[in-house]
């Protein structure tokens, strides 16, 4: 059994370094560059403290792929260093294995119904539990109609390395908000987590290119699962193959391909 639970994806560690101003600028210089595991940001601790300049204790928030080790900051995933204002840094890496994080929405497959919880496979190291009450409008009398093998779109309520992950299909105010059981039809397929993040990024080019092709329904789970439904099987297959091929294409190649599809080459 493959287990990779040691590292949470979005367990941000706050690193308050002695002279974090220097660390901050060092990190900032490397934003957008490719870094490899083992690269580190260490800095020589200055013994002299400037009396004239006011030293601000600025914290650096490390996202996935960055770890603090003593007075150094170590890269532990290969990828591109990203930065978000004001002080968040993380590594944008390509991987296929999903590690759950609280609040992320995923596509899961219901594997068993036991009592009042469903077990849901979301592609992680263990299955998540989903209460039958965690659906919009569900009560003890009014049970949701969920069968084994159905797909659900849900978000993580608990995602902790020491506990069983728990999914819910409602948001904080008890609304479905797009989540719930999938209707019939459509195709489920897997892509890498990196591509999913590219698809979900605001103003994603792939999405805008795709929307110009033909109308289709697309559900993107953060766990690398995509669900597509278009007017016909042929079109659904085209969309799924296009998205899968987006993985290793440059923007120009992709536009070229999409143009050809739009002209009816396929």
């Amino acid at each position, binding site marked *: *059994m493959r287990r990779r639970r040691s590292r949470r994806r979005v367990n941000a560690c706050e690193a308050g370094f002695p002279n974090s101003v220097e660390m901050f600028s060092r990190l900032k210089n490397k934003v957008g560059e490719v870094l490899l595991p083992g690269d580190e940001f260490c800095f020589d601790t200055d013994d002299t403290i400037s009396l004239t300049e006011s030293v601000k204790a600025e914290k650096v928030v490390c996202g996935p792929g960055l770890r603090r080790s003593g007075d150094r900051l170590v890269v532990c995933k290969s990828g591109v260093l990203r930065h978000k204002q004001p002080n968040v840094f993380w590594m944008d890496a390509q991987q296929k294995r999903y590690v759950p994080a609280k609040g992320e929405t995923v596509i899961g497959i219901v*594997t068993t119904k036991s009592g009042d919880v469903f077990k849901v496979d979301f592609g992680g190291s263990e299955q998540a539990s989903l209460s039958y009450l965690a659906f919009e409008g569900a009560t003890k009398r009014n049970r949701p109609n969920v069968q084994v*093998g*159905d797909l659900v779109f849900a978000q993580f309520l608990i995602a902790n390395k020491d506990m069983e992950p728990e999914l819910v299909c409602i948001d904080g105010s008890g609304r479905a908000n797009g989540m719930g059981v999938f209707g019939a*039809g459509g*195709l489920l397929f897997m892509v890498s987590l990196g591509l999913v993040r590219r698809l979900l990024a605001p103003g994603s080019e792939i999405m805008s290119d795709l929307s110009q092709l033909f109308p289709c329904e697309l559900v993107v789970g953060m766990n690398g699962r995509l669900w597509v439904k278009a007017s016909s099987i042929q079109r659904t*297959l085209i969309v799924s193959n296009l998205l899968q091929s987006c993985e290793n294409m440059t923007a120009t190649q992709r536009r070229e391909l999409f143009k050809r599809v739009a002209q009816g080459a396929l």
Partner: protein
Amino acid sequence: MKDTLLSNCERDFLLKAIEEKKRLDGRQTYDYRKIKITFGTDYGCCYVDLGKTRVMAQVSCELVAPKENRPNEGIMFFNIELSPLASPIFEQGRQSELSVKLNRQLERCLRNSKCIDTESLCVVSGEKVWQIRVDVHMLNHDGNLMDAASIAAITALCHFRRPDIAVQGEEVTVYSPEERDPIALSIYHMPISVSFSFFQQGTYLLVDPCEREERVMDGLLMIAMNKHREICSVQSSGGIMLLKEQVLRCSKIASVKVSEITELISKALENDKKARKAGGRCGFAESLPQERITALKMDEMPVEVTDVTEQAYDIIQKTKEPPQTVPSPLVPAPGVGQVDQGQQNTWGLEEEEEEREDGVEEEAVMEVEQQKEEESKGNIVEISDSEEEEVIILHPETPDTLHKSSCHQQGSATSKKKHKK
């Protein structure tokens, strides 16, 4: 790890797509995925890619006592390994139902079809025969493991060379590949398995099912055939009723596929043979980055170390920056001494100077290749021929800069060199 469940959505979609004669990866009903055959550095090592399915076969041989009922026949042994490397659903070290099934089918396909002349593997009747062992490792599972395994196994067997032997009276001599060229196995024909999956109780048929198609299929028919259209084995599983016409149609399709694949295999073998003859690095090794585990190996030797530190510092000080483009990618790790072997000839250039500097004279056995080179250069090189070349690399410099730097500091050595040039 338990197999992840196939969702109802995927199942429905696949069946609907098959009804419309469409497949997930855009193939037609009778299409195979892309087959790629590569070879390892050793004889008898073969990798087969069938789409995303990836299989490695390795053939090895051993001298053993024959079976009692067949005293003058060699032994064939087949082993299929399904490791978690291929798919998390496979468990380590346990014979699953699937692995037994695949193993049995491979044996039926290759051993029972008598495609290999086992009698030619006999060394001394009743005492010693060759045992040929074929290990098939699944590296990635994306459906149709059987076809990939059968292609890999037969290609590896064709590629394999066993050591030559000589029998003189009671004595059996096994020659190493350096002494005598190893011998290929005698293979009469190449049986290749072709899988057909059936859906909707045999209404629909697909060739080369991928993993998701395998999960929704009702039944599977595997036909092993050679290019002479001789059926070597037929196996049907899944418990569906097939009509006579269906089986006949499948066998016709199989004969076409087998002839295509056989051609591909022979082309791959030919290419590999050419590459090996040309003496270059060939096969799979070529596609891998160079990983020389011997790069850090160092034979122990006496070295005079009186003023090495100063000299090293001197060299480091005087050298220029190495150029950005390195002429040869084989730069050893910094601070590593190595006995240079079989690379581009640098005799008579900078190495002997280095050696003088250290005052090491060494008599050692040299590689044949180097001796040849030495002979050809013998008239130019003034110093004694038997001197083993020996480099102490203190900094990963290119030969040019090293040369320059060593010129700087050793007037005596360079002057000696000048007159020999």
